């Protein structure tokens, strides 16, 4: 089986006692313990300011265990992309920010969309999934 692991280290000294969290997970197909995510969509795109685009080109199979990584590689800290799913605002990724989420794409409208602000934002994304609805020619 394919093996995809995602590890995180989070540290903060905002509290009196410094916080440090580490975690690692092996990304499995939905509801399984023996079969890992085995398909990947990986790209870098530039989104001009004011433009909104769906990030994922093909719709992954709904309600599975897809994992989505997105990073805003803009070097200007005032640039950001506004992230929405199914028209619901999620939040903003400023230059240098990244996110990593489970994305179950529960219906056809549940795309992840990015709206670029401040200037052209350079976005890297990787979607680990277990199948997509491919577009026929």
């Amino acid at each position, binding site marked *: 089986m394919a093996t995809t692991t*995602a590890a995180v280290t989070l540290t903060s000294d*905002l509290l009196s006692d410094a916080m440090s969290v580490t975690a690692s*997970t092996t990304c499995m197909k939905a509801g399984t313990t023996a079969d890992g*995510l085995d398909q990947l969509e990986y790209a870098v795109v530039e989104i001009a300011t004011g433009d909104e685009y769906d990030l994922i080109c093909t719709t992954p199979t709904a309600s599975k*265990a897809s994992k989505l990584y997105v990073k805003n590689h803009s070097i200007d*800290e005032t640039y950001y992309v506004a992230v929405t799913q199914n028209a*619901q605002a999620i*939040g903003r990724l400023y230059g240098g920010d990244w996110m990593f989420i*489970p994305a179950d794409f529960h219906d056809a409208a549940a795309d992840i969309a990015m709206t670029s602000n401040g200037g052209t934002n350079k976005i890297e994304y*990787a979607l680990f999934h277990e199948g997509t609805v491919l577009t026929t020619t």
Partner: protein
Amino acid sequence: MATTCTINISSDAAPGFGGISESMTLTQAGTIVDIDSTTGFQRRKLSSTGAVDLITMASENIEPKDSVASKVYIRNIGDGKGNIDKTVGVTIGVNAEPIGKLYGGDWMMMPLTCIDADDVTATPATDDTVVIEFVMFYEEA
């Protein structure tokens, strides 16, 4: 007063994929000033399939600025007794919109709007006990 987060992803799903290793310092919106507020690290034990708020944005305990650079880290740590079940999932949502399902051991890091209606919710798929750890970083209004 820095808050940093590092991710490392490795995968053999594609032979040429070299992995991802990135770090970010959580800053206030549009600046290089460190983010200044946090809910602190919390955990919530769930034992039924009903949706619960992990973070209620209109809570008087926190008053984050809206639509800036807030982030939340959430992890499904299993039953809290060291047993992690990859088949037990908890759907994380924002304002009733399902974002995705965290199976046992899975974690996520995502930005938030912190608008009052945009509560962060958790909905277990089963009645099995599952514990969710989370922490939000935000800018004080």
